[in-house]
């Protein structure tokens, strides 16, 4: 009798906790999804619905005009292709160069390698704003210690091309690359040393060991870094708007969308356009920009947790 009552109190407690947990998670999920839902609802509304007091979520007149406008003004398909190319390129190069550096720091110790690793930490800590101007001026007249003028006669202007992204990601210094090197280093340190020694005894050099043994084992770390690097490059406005001013990539197109739209709608005078309508099309533009990411995310999200668990950042 007593036991039964105890059991029931326990089960009550459990039920109560389940309900509290459910409420919390549902509520917070709603908070996260709310802006996206709002954008979807705004994107399919007609302009007149914006002023109608009875329309809040479900539009009275359903229309795809906003999408058509945003796609046309953003040059969506070309932009999508450019952004995808840029992100994919930097992602692959960054992952490769960071894997090399991470392995070097983790297992191939040489004199001063710990000092250099402190340099990696420094790149994580210094805000990119601090070094932005010198990099900008450097890329504008790119000389590479006087080598380039010797060949062509004058310094090259690398701005407005993909070269800044290629160079920085090839040398593992692109956006947040320090973090990726750190992840790779932690991961490689977690693989037993005996594996390497066995490979060495079987006649594999350092290069073979790395490509045939270590890299295939490092797939969780590779997934994590490629995911982060792709997403952050896609959304990055800081470097992209500095290096690329006229090229058509998502973040520059998105930030100039309101202005271009205003010009388009009012025939040259940006101040005459209706700000609410502009905001509406801008929301549609944001939705279009994150749509590819969400689609990719749906496919890879289950690797997210799994791979972070196994990268050893936490071990």
């Amino acid at each position, binding site marked *: 009798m007593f036991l039964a009552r105890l059991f029931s109190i326990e089960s009550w407690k459990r039920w109560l906790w389940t309900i509290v947990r459910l409420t919390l998670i549902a509520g917070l999920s709603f908070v996260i999804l709310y802006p996206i839902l709002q954008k979807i609802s705004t994107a399919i509304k007609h302009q007149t619905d914006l002023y109608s007091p009875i329309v809040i979520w479900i539009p009275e007149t359903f229309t795809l005009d906003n999408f058509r406008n945003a796609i046309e003004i953003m040059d969506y398909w070309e932009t999508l292709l450019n952004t995808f190319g840029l992100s994919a390129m930097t992602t692959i190069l960054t992952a490769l160069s960071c894997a090399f550096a991470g392995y070097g720091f983790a297992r191939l110790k040489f004199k001063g390698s710990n000092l250099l690793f402190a340099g990696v930490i420094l790149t994580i800590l210094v805000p990119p*704003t601090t070094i932005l101007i010198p990099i900008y001026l450097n890329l504008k007249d790119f000389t590479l210690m006087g080598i380039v003028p010797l060949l062509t006669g004058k310094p090259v202007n690398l701005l407005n091309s993909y070269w800044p992204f290629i160079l920085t990601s090839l040398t593992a210094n692109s956006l947040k690359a320090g973090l990726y090197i750190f992840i790779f280093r932690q991961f490689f340190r977690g693989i037993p040393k005996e594996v390497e020694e066995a490979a060495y005894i079987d006649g594999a050099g*350092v290069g073979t060991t790395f490509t045939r043994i270590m890299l295939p084992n490092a797939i969780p770390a590779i997934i994590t870094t490629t995911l982060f690097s792709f997403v952050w490059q896609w959304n990055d406005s800081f470097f992209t708007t500095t290096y690329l001013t006229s090229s058509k990539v998502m973040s520059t197109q998105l930030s100039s969308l309101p202005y271009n739209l205003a010009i388009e709608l009012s025939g040259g005078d940006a101040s005459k356009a209706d700000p609410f309508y502009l905001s509406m099309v801008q929301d549609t533009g944001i939705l279009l920009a994150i749509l590819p990411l969400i689609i990719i995310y749906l496919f890879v999200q289950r690797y997210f947790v799994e791979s972070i668990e196994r990268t050893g950042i936490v071990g």
Partner: protein
Amino acid sequence: MKSLLKLGFKERTYAQQKAFWGFLYVLPWLLGFIFFFLIPLLTSLRYSFSKIEAKSSGILITSTGWKNYVEALTVNTSFNRTLTEAIVNMVVNVPLIVIFSLFLAVLLNQKFVGRSVARSIFFLPVILASGVIMSLESSSLVQAINDQNESSGILSGFGSFELARMMLQAGVSETIVNYLTGAVDRIYQIVSQSGVQILIFLAGIQTISPQLYEASKIEGATGYEAFWKITFPMVSPLILVNMIYTIIDSFSNNTLTQLIRDTGFVNFNFGLSSAMAWIYFVAIAVILLISTYLVSRKVFYHE
């Protein structure tokens, strides 16, 4: 020649060979580090002490001493205010984000129906809340209007206001009440900034060996005790990691970086902009040092 090279190569010991290759593997990063980080960093330091003029013949740099720093701190109308705002925001937000993400990670680690769906929703901010989308979102007029409509409804009296009254009557200090209700009002901001932190905590919790929990359960520990005596100490190194990450992340894109950029690229005052960026960097470094010092004393390493 070739055989000589081969001979030289063969004579290295395994350790020497590894050191050689190690340097080779790190070399691309080292080149990038020198060209795209170290030299710009030093140049920026030099710029901050000088006046930069773009002439047709090239860039003219004249040294001016501390003038740029003095200008940033005393003459410029918005720098001081923006800097203190950024720092205060950070000090307020970082503890909230770390505690909140630890709590959610514990929650998402429990077994319940729809856990994988909940997880994917909570990691969505990792993708969405960065860069241009975030900055455009804050300027969305439609959203502002909708929020306005909603809060003018009958429900607006309820919510954090009621909570504040309840807590004040219960005798909780006013600063704490304001802090907590402020957190409730900024819940979206906090949730959207804690995606990566939740991931890291969640991964950390899952590496704790289940034997610890089993043993404590047999000894009669409740779930509450198990959290404070096992989970919390075991993830405490990650609290440090997450704190540092949150601080850096909160500083990566805010109104201050915007101000520094505008000073550089709109007003073309490179010297002043560099000085501002260096003050900013020093402020971050000081905050990181202090907080790391304070937290790392409490961290428990299971070794």
